[in-house]
């Protein structure tokens, strides 16, 4: 290979106090070649974004690069003046951020925002600017660029905004594009579109891409080479195919093993114990020591040096010995979960034709001019001890279903029966009593606990409300619950902010368990967590289900979690369930075109896996104004005239798989 486009040597970036700095990047070496996609992989807080910001010289005010060289196409970026650096930024080096919603100025038209970037870097004037803007919009696959250029950011969907961001980054014809978690905020079908676009652009223009991500699936699909980052250092670099055959560093291996999938259904997921160490300290041994299961004596005494194994692969581990990848979890019989499931016939919860419509008010008198049909006729059954996964893209009404079942939102119509009791008709004390049987765990463990309350009080709140036991009994039960979710008893006397994300989610589980519920609605409980922590929570949920015979309604968009945890799955699109059935049958032989597209869009962490992504055009329509006929027909690749006319009835396929699609009702 020739000279790399970007070469970073011994980069050290610090944040905060000079006496007591946080070493967010601590001796990082990196080389990116022209035209390749290089992925920087790691959990949150390990310094990925700080590396990118150091390269762009856009560190926050308290941050500084204290040592190192960043050589970019022959110039050392750290020695450039601010004025020269501005030419590089957005010119030779473009960047796109995670959150497209906040990266665009809401009061400027799309075209003007791109034109600004064009003028800066191309020194064009007048109509040639407009021409270039339209060219750029066209190149990122935005249909009807002339109209779109005159629109404001709020008129575009998330995926469109991210395309606009990419167009702006491309305005300076960059040699290197830094993409910091470009698809994390997007839905899986949109994510597929954006990743595809990045690939096409790269092929056409030959630029290099630095892709920062935590998702192994995305890495496998898009990257050529990758570096795994841990606690401010790179612990392994490799090309993608070698890496996915056998990662060398224990941390990389653990990341793999903690990914949930259907093959691991009956076993516990591997977890990485503990959390990323504080970067304030000076390390005297391996940074991964406390969390590593293979560490030896040397690891605590010696700081591991970088070891180049061959031209493609390097690792920072003292025990890098090339033993085959053996997963301890698979050999250890104690960690498997033997599930003896009794299939009870009568469902614990049965939801029939549930509807939640939100009125749209307009005018001075606030007259109702229409309804947002967030949930529009949903049928669900959850037997005792089972897990039903509710899958769908954001905005399809999954969370609303959960809240309506709990009666946190009043359903507009339909019924929800819990052990024969009609929940929608319960009022006052009877409803309050029933609430103990159904609990909810939320997505964001930060906002789901009152920061002003002690953990003990948070957990006991439900017991107080349900008048369960005396004060000492409640205190005893709090301790018992904390142990049950794997926390120590001291936790009760501390505040939520003293805990990490995973621990907080455990506290939320404990709080839900406190009132001895029979059904727990889990609303994306792991999507805010890192992969290794996600594995801990999934293990915990599975164990608890086994122990306490709980039922779960698991609301998620993460298909691999579904395949690991759920018994049944229901796929939701625009307020209605389009397909449901046993997990195996739905995931292996999806019948509805939407399910097929959704499943095909999920990136698989296996570079050899060839899949044909069914590309969905456009975005989900607004639930305030759903399309006539089948809701999915505007995006459906197999839509026919019939689909435009009427909503398809539910058809029963084999093995209890039910689907609402005209393709499957034709024969009946």
């Amino acid at each position, binding site marked *: 290979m020739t000279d790399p486009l970007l070469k970073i040597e011994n980069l050290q970036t610090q944040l905060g106090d000079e006496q007591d700095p946080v070493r967010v990047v601590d001796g990082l070496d990196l080389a990116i070649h022209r035209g390749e996609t290089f992925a920087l992989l790691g959990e949150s807080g390990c310094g990925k974004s700080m590396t990118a910001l150091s390269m762009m010289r856009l560190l926050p005010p308290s941050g500084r690069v204290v040592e190192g060289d960043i050589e970019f196409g022959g110039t050392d970026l750290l020695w450039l003046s601010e004025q020269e650096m501005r030419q590089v930024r957005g010119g030779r080096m473009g960047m796109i951020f995670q959150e497209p919603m906040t990266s665009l100025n809401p009061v400027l038209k799309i075209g003007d925002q791109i034109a600004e970037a064009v003028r800066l870097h191309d020194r064009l004037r007048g109509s040639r600017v407009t021409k270039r803007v339209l060219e750029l919009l066209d190149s990122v696959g935005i249909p009807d660029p002339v109209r779109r250029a005159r629109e404001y950011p709020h008129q575009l969907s998330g995926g469109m905004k991210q395309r606009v961001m990419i167009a702006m980054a491309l305005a300076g014809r960059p040699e290197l594009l830094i993409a910091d978690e470009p698809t994390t905020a997007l839905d899986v079908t949109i994510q597929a579109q954006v990743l595809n676009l990045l690939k096409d652009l790269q092929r056409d223009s030959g630029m290099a891409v630095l892709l920062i991500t935590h998702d192994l699936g995305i890495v496998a699909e898009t990257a050529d080479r990758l570096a795994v980052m841990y606690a401010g250092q790179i612990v392994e670099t490799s090309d993608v195919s070698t890496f996915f055959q056998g990662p060398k560093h224990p941390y990389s291996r653990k990341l793999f093993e903690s990914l949930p999938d259907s093959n691991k259904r009956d076993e516990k997921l591997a977890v990485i114990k503990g959390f990323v160490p504080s970067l304030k300290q000076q390390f005297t041994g391996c940074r991964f020591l406390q969390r590593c299961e293979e560490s030896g004596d040397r690891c605590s005494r010696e700081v591991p040096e970088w070891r180049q194994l061959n031209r493609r692969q390097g690792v920072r581990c003292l025990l890098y010995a090339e033993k085959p990848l053996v997963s301890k979890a698979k050999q250890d019989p104690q960690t498997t979960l033997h599930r003896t499931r009794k299939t009870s016939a009568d469902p614990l919860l049965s939801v029939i034709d549930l509807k939640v419509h939100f009125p749209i008010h307009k005018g001075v008198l606030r007259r109702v001019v229409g309804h947002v049909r967030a949930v529009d006729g949903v049928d669900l059954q959850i037997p005792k001890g089972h897990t039903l996964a509710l899958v769908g893209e954001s905005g399809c009404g999954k969370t609303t279903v959960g*809240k309506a079942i*709990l009666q*946190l939102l009043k359903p507009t119509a339909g019924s929800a029966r819990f052990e024969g009791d009609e929940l929608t008709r319960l009022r006052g004390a009877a*409803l*309050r*009593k029933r*609430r*103990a049987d*159904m*609990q*909810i765990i*939320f*997505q*964001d463990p930060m*906002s*789901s*606990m*009152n*920061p*002003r*309350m002690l953990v003990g009080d*948070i957990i006991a*709140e*439900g017991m*107080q*409300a*349900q008048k369960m036991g005396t004060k000492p009994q409640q205190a005893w039960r709090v301790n018992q619950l904390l142990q049950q979710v794997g926390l120590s008893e001291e936790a009760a006397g501390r*505040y939520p*902010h003293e805990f990490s994300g995973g621990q907080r989610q455990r506290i*939320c589980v404990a*709080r*839900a368990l406190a*009132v001895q519920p029979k059904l727990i609605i889990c609303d994306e409980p792991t999507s805010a967590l890192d992969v290794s922590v996600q594995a801990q929570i999934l293990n915990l949920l599975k164990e608890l289900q086994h122990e306490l015979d709980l039922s779960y309604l698991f609301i998620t968009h993460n298909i691999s979690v579904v395949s690991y945890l759920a018994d049944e799955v229901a796929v939701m699109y625009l307020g209605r369930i389009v397909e449901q059935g046993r997990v195996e049958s739905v995931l292996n032989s999806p019948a509805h075109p939407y399910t097929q597209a959704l499943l095909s869009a999920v990136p698989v962490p296996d570079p050899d896996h060839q899949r044909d992504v069914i590309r969905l055009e456009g975005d989900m329509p607004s639930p305030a104004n759903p399309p006539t006929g089948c809701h999915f027909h505007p995006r459906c690749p197999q839509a026919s005239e019939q689909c435009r006319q009427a909503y398809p009835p539910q058809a029963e396929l084999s093995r209890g798989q039910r689907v609402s699609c005209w393709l499957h009702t034709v024969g009946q």
Partner: protein
Amino acid sequence: MIEPVILWTDALIFLLVLLIAGFALYARRKEHLRAPWQEIARSRVGMGALVVLSVYVAIGLLDSLHYRPQVAQEGQAETAEVLSLFDKLVTPLRVRQEKTYSAPLATHQYAKENIELADGSMVRDYPRLKHAGAHLENPQEEWLQDILWLIAKGLVEGLIFWLLCSALLIYWSARRSDGSFRQKFAAIRRSDTTLPWKSLLFTSGVLTLVGFVAAELSLHYHLLGTDKVGEDVLYQALKSIRTGLVIGTLTTMVMLPAAILLGIMAGYFRGWVDDVIQYTYTTLNSIPGVLLIAAAILMMQIYMSNHEEEFTSLTQRADLRLLFLCMILGVTSWTGLCRLLRGETFKLRELEYVQASLAFGVGHFKIIGRHILPNVLHIVLITLVLDFSGLVLAEAVLSYVNIGVDPTMNSWGNMINGARLEMAREPIVWWSLAAALVFMFTLVLAANLFSDVVRDAFDPRLRTTR
């Protein structure tokens, strides 16, 4: 024998003091409340401003302990005069009245008068003042020397007093932390303490020196001159402190319950409750505040002149009018906080911990008390401190247009109003206005600096480290 008199505002002020003490005790036990205050205690600007504020508060509190001096002779009608402890302390200032205007530190009156000389002839000249500089034989020659001597004396006395107090304070603090005086002193010199001792001592030093010099000068002169009826302007300015503080604090106390209750209810229950509350405050907000205040004050005046027998003293009457002004200011100013709280509650009630409690079947009012109120308290606090200076200034403006406090009551607004016409005089009478401005400016500046620090400490968005 003295007979204590408790005016309405006095009672409310001491209730407020009790409430603050109670809140301080409560906050000591709560980590999330204690931490921001500790941060304030570490701020140099904050503590400097606090020293200035506490001097004002001390004067205000002393001025709130009222009593009626008993006249010695039996059978004489009771005086209608009500005095405060502060009046007693500064008796010389209060009683040494001149005939009319005199400039600061002057020995002669500001205007010429016909003076009858010893030989019976009449001369038109500036007469000597009754009290100021009365000890001087020959004012023209001795004046400057005397003034300089008094300033020097005040400075020396102040310095000694300050050094003594500082030493005692450092000694006490060293004893508390089981260290020696020398260690503590060295730590303070190195600025190696949690409290910003240097700024604390510096501010209090400056204030002590100013105080002592002012006291020395006022014993023999009118430091800030006299007004139209010969009253000492310094005394007026000092008495105005209480009025300013009362307006600044009691107004917020009056509006607070309504703002908190209605704001949270609107945000939490939404629907028709929200509509009613929202329309109420939108309506109230669209009435011009000055008009509303003017109407209310005029009504109050008419009531007072019709029921004169209900008020035993002028002070009582003025006090009631002050309280009424606080109330009416409160009524017009609660909407801002209410709106803020409504918005914040809107956001909070959608948060997942509130949803979780709902899912447990916790009652609405318990949720409000446990989850909503503690999480909006910082907004309440920030608003209170920010509003304070605005209200002090509002009083001045209202008194200027004659719908503020009673004309007999000392207030900065009244002082400015009184000085307004004299601005046109030649030579100009500037000291009343200047005194009021300096006193008000110091208080408002200190309050603003302090409120900035409070906001920085309590606003979660500004907190960089957890």
